[in-house]
């Protein structure tokens, strides 16, 4: 039996596009978008339903697992999705291979760096002394 009869239609064309890659990036952008639909709505609803937005209330909220865990997931997912989206814009407008690589590398550094600062701050709030 040849591969042609057993491979799925998707399997036969996978990797054969003009760029030879990108399917995973495309899918991840969509999976993170659904995650952010949930996490973003959670964040907005939480901020609206907290009794007030004083540092004490916010700290108490982010010290609880029900606050800190979704917030950590939101930070990671938002930076990942933001980076994936900006990469599409870079790839659309910057065609020179060297500039494209340089910009995408900068973008990756900025996203990972920013997410790390946000996660460090969140950890400090969650595990630090009570405000």
């Amino acid at each position: 039996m040849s591969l042609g009869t057993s491979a799925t239609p998707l399997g036969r064309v996978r990797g054969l596009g003009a760029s030879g890659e990108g399917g995973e990036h495309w899918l991840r952008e969509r999976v993170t978008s659904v995650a952010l639909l949930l996490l973003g709505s959670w964040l907005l609803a939480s901020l609206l339903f907290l009794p007030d937005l004083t540092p004490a209330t916010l700290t108490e909220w982010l010290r609880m697992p029900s606050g800190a865990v979704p917030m950590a997931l939101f930070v990671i997912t938002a930076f990942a999705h933001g980076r994936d989206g900006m990469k599409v814009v870079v790839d659309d407008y910057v065609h020179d291979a060297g500039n494209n690589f340089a910009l995408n590398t900068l973008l990756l550094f900025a996203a990972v760096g920013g997410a790390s600062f946000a996660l460090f701050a969140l950890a400090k709030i969650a595990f630090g002394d009570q405000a």
Partner: protein
Amino acid sequence: MLVSILHRVTGGALTVAGLAVLTWWLMALAEGGDAYASFTKASTHWAGMVVLIGLTWAFFQHLLSGLRHLVMDSGHGFELRTNKLFAVATVVGSLLLTAALWVYVLGRAA
């Protein structure tokens, strides 16, 4: 066309300005004291409020046009009338949601 461009612009704004504000807010809260006081000062200044209102609109617009893209990814909603209706709905929806949110927020603060 307009909604497609809006999706990119709002995505870029949310990534650059939105994530900067999110990180600044968390860092200020972690630091506490003066750091949080300067965040509050900026976020309650009229210019800061314009940024926050703009970001909430960008969030709703990107969320709704993102949902539209997910539907179109599944191969649906390409009929001219449906497509146009859905596109207009994202713009009207994001403006209504932003207005409702800030009427509630400012009403509660007053």
